[in-house]
């Protein structure tokens, strides 16, 4: 699951080594699960996610590389590929970049080809088309530690001679054997290369169209130079448990329950701590600065608004810690297997599962990840349902409303409480809406035969602290950046609108302010859902991004309350009926309150048609269901 709103960040800097011919670009290529991203992080130090899951790195990412001679180059991390034939969108990206046909990215000057040493004969199939590009290439055989432990051996010198390019055995996760990689980079960055030419020998390479010939070539090349390791006993044993007819689904359910309970109860002390810090800071500002509009803007607008969202950082990080562990360990691929039957029943193909899973973090990278789906109709169907999956931006809204309206009571002892159960229910609601929408689409406008489910199961691995740490750091940065830009801008804009127009030099009551009158204009439309004008203002500002509503309510209540606030939760309890609270949860489960998602759907589907259809459908569904929820809950509570 990659960054929200990630985009290729090619940082171009002039080479200090002026003698060499300009700026160099080096491409990192390899099949899925070869450890590409881990190596990328090792070499560049740039934070980027690692996923032990086929087809996750879809956008290419770039980072800066420093050779030991001081020269710099751009390293591009390309999508994992099984072949160089542009059959899916991500293969096309890799294909185009390597051939220099990708706009904005120069043709690479050299290639780092990373293959899994424990899976050499199959991974070598990718080597043939990459070598035939004729660029200086270094073959890095990763997972050296794993190979050794399972009794496999490899003759790098022999293999290097057969391929005609240098070959190194390394472990990117452990950081061992990477010295030759730096030597190779020194060589391609202008220093005389180490022994041996890095240019591949082009004769007797098979054509990629002929898969059997490629495999025969790979077998021939690896024969004698590589002794296959024994199958991983641990992977087999763990699969026997995780895919067991009874234990498998039970463990799956248990994992889901534990994750949700932990992000609720585990994050509470940390969130209370952050809340306390922000509260004290607000008080300090209020007592230190002289009384002025500026002070009020700072305390009511910025600190209450942005602070109200920043409080949720620990919870979001905990969610990403769990996603990271499940992904890096290889369990997620097994979960995909368990879920496939359900997916099939709703007309979705297995490949849709990967983007849908990553949509739990954010719909934006999920929609970009649909490029792995070859079938156009299947791809559009997956794009259209992805925003229904509960993204992390909904988490603050859900947590706030649940904490305000649902008393915590144990359901399954300490394992599951009412609040976590409500949260699971909301995640299930989004998933259900996605499945039903998929079925409706697949049986009408987007009918297709579909491509079958094919998934290579990665070996289980211990997630490394380093990889998880980089992931969380990355997440925290994305979150804080949003808090410092979109959410800050909304908070300031809202505070100003809440203080205009001035009445004899004094700000009006918030009800009569510019913001208040906008809220009261939409109030008749949302009153049937149980929302008042304050929620109305929140719904409008949250069109920018869902969590903005939390900041908005923080600002509104911050202005309203005379003395110190009793907190958002208490203020919300006064402002919403239980029916309205449930309606608000349902509304946020379904509505497409996210400009970034609309923009990425437009880009990926190549026009306004699908994003307009999607936005109207999701908002309409949200309205109708929130209306029904308000009616049902209100009637039920009498």
């Amino acid at each position, binding site marked *: 699951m990659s960054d929200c709103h990630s985009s290729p960040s090619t940082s171009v800097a002039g080479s200090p080594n002026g003698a060499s011919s300009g700026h160099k670009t080096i491409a990192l290529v390899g099949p899925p699960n070869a450890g590409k991203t881990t190596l990328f992080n090792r070499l560049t130090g740039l934070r980027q996610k690692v996923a032990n899951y086929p087809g996750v790195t879809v956008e290419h990412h770039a980072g800066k590389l420093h050779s030991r001679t001081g020269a710099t180059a751009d390293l591009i991390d390309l999508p994992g590929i099984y072949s160089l034939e542009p*059959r899916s969108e991500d293969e096309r990206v890799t294909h185009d970049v390597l051939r220099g046909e990708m706009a904005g990215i120069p043709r690479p000057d050299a290639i780092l080809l990373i293959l899994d040493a424990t899976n050499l004969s199959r991974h070598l199939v990718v080597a043939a088309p990459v070598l035939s590009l004729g660029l200086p290439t270094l073959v890095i055989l990763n997972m050296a530690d794993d190979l050794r432990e399972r009794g496999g051996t490899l003759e790098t010198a022999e293999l290097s001679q057969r391929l005609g390019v240098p070959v190194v055995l390394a472990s990117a996760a452990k950081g061992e054997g990477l010295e030759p990689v730096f030597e190779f980079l020194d060589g391609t960055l202008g220093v005389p290369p180490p022994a041996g030419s890095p240019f591949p020998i082009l004769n007797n390479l098979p054509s990629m169209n002929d898969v059997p010939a490629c495999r025969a070539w790979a077998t021939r090349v690896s024969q004698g130079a590589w002794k296959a390791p024994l199958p991983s006993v641990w992977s087999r044993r763990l699969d026997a448990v995780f895919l067991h007819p009874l234990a498998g689904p039970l463990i799956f359910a248990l994992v889901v329950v534990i994750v949700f309970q932990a992000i609720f109860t585990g994050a509470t002390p940390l969130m209370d701590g952050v809340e306390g810090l922000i509260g004290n800071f607000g008080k300090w500002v209020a007592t230190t600065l002289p009384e002025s509009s500026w002070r009020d803007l700072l305390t009511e607008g910025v600190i209450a608004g942005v602070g109200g969202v920043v409080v949720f950082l620990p919870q979001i990080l905990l969610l990403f810690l769990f996603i990271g562990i499940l992904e890096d360990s290889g369990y997620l691929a097994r979960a995909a297997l368990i879920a*496939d039957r359900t997916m099939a029943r709703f007309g979705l193909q297995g490949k849709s599962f990967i983007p849908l899973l990553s949509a739990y973090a954010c719909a934006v990278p999920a929609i970009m990840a649909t490029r792995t789906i070859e079938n156009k109709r299947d791809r559009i169907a997956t794009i259209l349902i992805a925003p229904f999956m509960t993204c992390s931006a909904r988490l603050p809204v859900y947590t706030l409303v649940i904490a305000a309206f649902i008393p915590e009571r144990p359901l399954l002892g300490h394992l599951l409480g009412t609040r976590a159960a409500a949260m699971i229910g909301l995640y299930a609601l989004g998933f259900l809406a996605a499945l039903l929408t998929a079925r409706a689409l697949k049986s009408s406008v987007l009918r297709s035969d579909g491509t079958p489910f*094919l998934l290579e199961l990665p070996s289980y691995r211990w997630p490394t602290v380093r990889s998880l740490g980089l992931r969380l750091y990355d997440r925290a940065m994305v979150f804080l950046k949003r808090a410092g830009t979109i959410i800050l801008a909304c908070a300031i804009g809202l505070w100003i609108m809440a203080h205009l127009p001035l009445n004899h030099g004094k700000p009006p009551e918030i009800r009569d302010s510019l913001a208040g009158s906008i809220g009261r204009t939409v109030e008749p439309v949302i009153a049937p859902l149980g929302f008042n004008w304050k929620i109305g203002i929140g719904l409008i500002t949250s069109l920018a991004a869902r969590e903005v509503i939390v900041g908005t309510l923080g600002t509104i209540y911050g202005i309203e309350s005379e003395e110190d606030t009793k907190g958002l939760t208490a203020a919300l309890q006064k402002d919403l009926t239980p029916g309205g609270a449930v309606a608000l949860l349902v509304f946020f489960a379904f509505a497409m309150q996210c400009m970034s998602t609309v923009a990425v759907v437009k880009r990926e589907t190549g026009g306004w048609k699908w994003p307009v259809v999607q936005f109207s459908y999701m908002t309409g569904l949200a309205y109708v269901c929130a209306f029904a929820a308000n009616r049902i809950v209100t009637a039920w509570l009498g």
Partner: protein
Amino acid sequence: MQISGNSRLAHRATLLDLAPGEEATLAELSLPEEIAHRLMILGFVPGSSVSYTRSAPGGDPRVYRVDGADVALRGETASHIHLERRM
């Protein structure tokens, strides 16, 4: 790609007939070119050996071991992959 057009092959055993742990040699992929190509890249090349590891809970999809890796596919796909002979 439709590899070999021998009609006799249609009656041969498929991947679905393998018992857990059983190994066999692949003969033919009676699937559209697009899918056959993907399968071959993952290791399902006629002539290579394949064994059935286990199924997901509920019997589908199924996990096959081919060329040192575990690959999962649905029974529907497995029923179009024909076997040479049991080993």
